[in-house]
């Protein structure tokens, strides 16, 4: 078994190794910004390539597992990749490429010379590590890696608003980490193992499942803070609009999604003995998250703050899929994840171009962009309408599948909430459209006329992917359905990690 897997196993390490080596190269080329930029682009492209290859390998050969350093499973460090992990790694690669390209044009010299690129790749390493970790303690370690990198990215530049946002972000996330670590400690105390596959086996045999339920709540709170769910989300809209747009985009696309990924992992693999309690709880949280997020968004008049509240709202949809705990619902959630990561990052990148053109994020002061930049208006509409769920964009199919699953399972309340929130999402997207694009510009303020090509290329790229997913939703749905199948039947994952045992 070991022998067969070794060749393929390279693909599971590469998504962690490539960002690390890129970061190393960028650190060594500290004083040569041009070299750093080139390395960064190459590293991101390689990460995307490795992610795609990993996805392909998992698709054909099933779940992959790798025992780091050849130490056998429950004792050593395990990396494991199922389809869901592989999809997430591909998304991370795609965002890495687009955000790096965008950074080339938009990042100021000061941030670049203080290590923007190395830190960006360390962040990517942490994100990919978290997606691939098969061990709950290592999941914690990867979370720390990506958090520390994100602290630096958030504060790099040291603007007043950045520091204010960072204080809330750092405090809340450190608390979440402490809770997470406490949960890991208790889990180790009751089960005597940290390998997630082994934990799944041990927890199923537990005599007192109430204790496990209690621990699961610790994890729900810890990951809940990181995923920004109701009522623990307020750090997100307070901080995401403060750093440069490229950083906002990668944060919005990846960081909270790592929290959601972790919730999916532990609540499909480990804590599935009392679904009636835990998953109902998740469903309730999902509902509140959707509603509060979108209501917050409706009230905002700052472009990026509005988008930040939307992130929260969309997290609710993802959790709804998990809370319903049914293969169809989870497939919809995986599909939704792909769509929301792409749409959200695109919108943030668009907000950056808007800022480039008119020098503000304030919707009241913006205007007339439809006349002055019709192409950009189109690029805004694609992700915005997709997020609101207008066919034939992927958001429509994602919501259709999610609500369909909800109705099928008899969860009428949450399905109704999802539909209502969808309308409010459309409303707030139209608000941006009206304010920034449609109405005439209130003050003919300073405005750059030309848009740098490098700012537009990544947006076009993402918009094309979104359109592609919309028009060819079938294959991605098949993929999502298989990913959900693997999630809802942990036996395959356990088998892949622990072997025949």
């Amino acid at each position, binding site marked *: 078994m070991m022998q067969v897997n070794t060749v393929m196993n390279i693909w599971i390490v590469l998504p962690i190794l490539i960002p*690390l080596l890129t970061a190393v190269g960028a650190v060594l080329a500290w004083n040569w910004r041009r070299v750093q930029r080139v390395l960064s682009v190459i590293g991101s492209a390689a990460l995307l390539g490795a992610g795609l290859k990993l996805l392909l390998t998992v698709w054909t050969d099933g779940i992959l597992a790798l025992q780091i350093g050849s130490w056998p499973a429950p004792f050593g460090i395990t990396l494991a990749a199922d389809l869901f992990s592989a999809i997430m790694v591909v998304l991370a690669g795609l965002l890495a490429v687009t955000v790096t390209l965008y950074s080339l044009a938009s990042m100021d010299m000061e941030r670049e010379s203080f290590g923007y690129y190395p830190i960006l790749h360390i962040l990517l390493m942490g994100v990919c590590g978290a997606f691939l970790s098969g061990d709950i303690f290592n999941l914690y370690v990867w979370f720390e890696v990506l958090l520390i990198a994100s602290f630096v990215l958030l504060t790099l530049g040291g603007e007043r608003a950045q520091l204010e946002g960072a204080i809330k972000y750092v405090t809340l996330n450190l608390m979440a980490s402490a809770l997470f670590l406490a949960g890991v400690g208790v889990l180790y105390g009751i089960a005597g193992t940290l390998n997630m596959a082994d934990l799944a086996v041990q927890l199923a045999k537990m005599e007192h499942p109430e204790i496990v339920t209690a621990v699961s709540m610790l994890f729900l709170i810890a990951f809940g803070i990181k995923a920004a769910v109701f009522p623990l989300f307020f750090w997100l809209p307070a901080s995401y609009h403060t750093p440069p747009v490229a950083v906002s985009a990668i944060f919005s696309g990846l960081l909270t999604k790592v929290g959601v990924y972790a919730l999916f992992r532990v609540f499909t693999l480990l804590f599935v003995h009392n679904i009636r309690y835990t998953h109902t709880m998740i469903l309730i949280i999902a509902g509140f998250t959707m509603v509060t997020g979108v209501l917050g968004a409706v009230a905002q008049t700052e472009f990026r703050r509005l988008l930040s509240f939307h992130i929260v709202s969309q997290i609710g949809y993802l959790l709804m899929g998990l809370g319903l705990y049914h293969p169809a619902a989870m497939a919809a959630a995986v599909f939704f994840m792909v769509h929301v990561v792409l749409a959200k990052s695109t919108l943030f990148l668009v907000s950056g171009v808007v800022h480039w053109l008119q020098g503000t994020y304030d919707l009241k002061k913006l205007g007339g962009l439809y006349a002055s930049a019709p192409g950009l208006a189109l690029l805004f509409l694609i992700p915005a309408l997709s997020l609101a769920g207008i066919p034939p964009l992927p958001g429509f199919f994602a919501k259709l599948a999610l609500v369909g699953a909800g109705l099928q399972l008899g969860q009428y309340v949450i399905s109704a909430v999802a539909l209502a929130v969808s309308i409010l999402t459309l409303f707030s997207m139209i608000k941006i459209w009206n304010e920034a694009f449609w109405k005439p510009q209130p003050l003919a303020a300073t405005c750059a006329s030309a848009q740098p090509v490098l700012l537009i290329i990544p947006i076009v790229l993402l918009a094309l992917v979104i359109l592609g997913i919309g028009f060819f939703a079938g294959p991605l749905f098949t993929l999502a359905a298989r990913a959900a199948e693997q999630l809802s039947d942990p036996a395959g994952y356990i088998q892949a990690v622990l072997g025949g045992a």
Partner: protein
Amino acid sequence: MVSLILSTAVRYIFPLQLLFSIFLLLRGHNEPGGGFVGGLVVAAAFSLVALANNVWTAQRTMGVNPRVLIGVGLLAAAVSGLQALIAGQPFMTAAWIARDIPVLGKVGTPLLFDFGVYLVVIGVTLTIIFTLMEE
């Protein structure tokens, strides 16, 4: 303010600290020690120079920018794992030289990894300390 007593003492303590750090690094595989503490001892040595004289002396004594050490150290650690990939084994599987080498003892990729940790710790600690002292 430069203290004559401290700066004279440092002249003797400094080489001892460096030697001790190498001792810790090499002994670390199976006994207390290792790259992390070894690196801290080196960082302590250079901080002592910086305290006794000034930051610039410490930086000049060091000869390289600590930031470079972070990069080289990370690279060494990554390469120690890559060797296994090339040999067709799972990432980070240890490879040892069969015969013991005098003074160093057992030599293999874990030593390279530890050396990487050693450099990273020196680099990170001194980057922080030098930056703070410069201000």
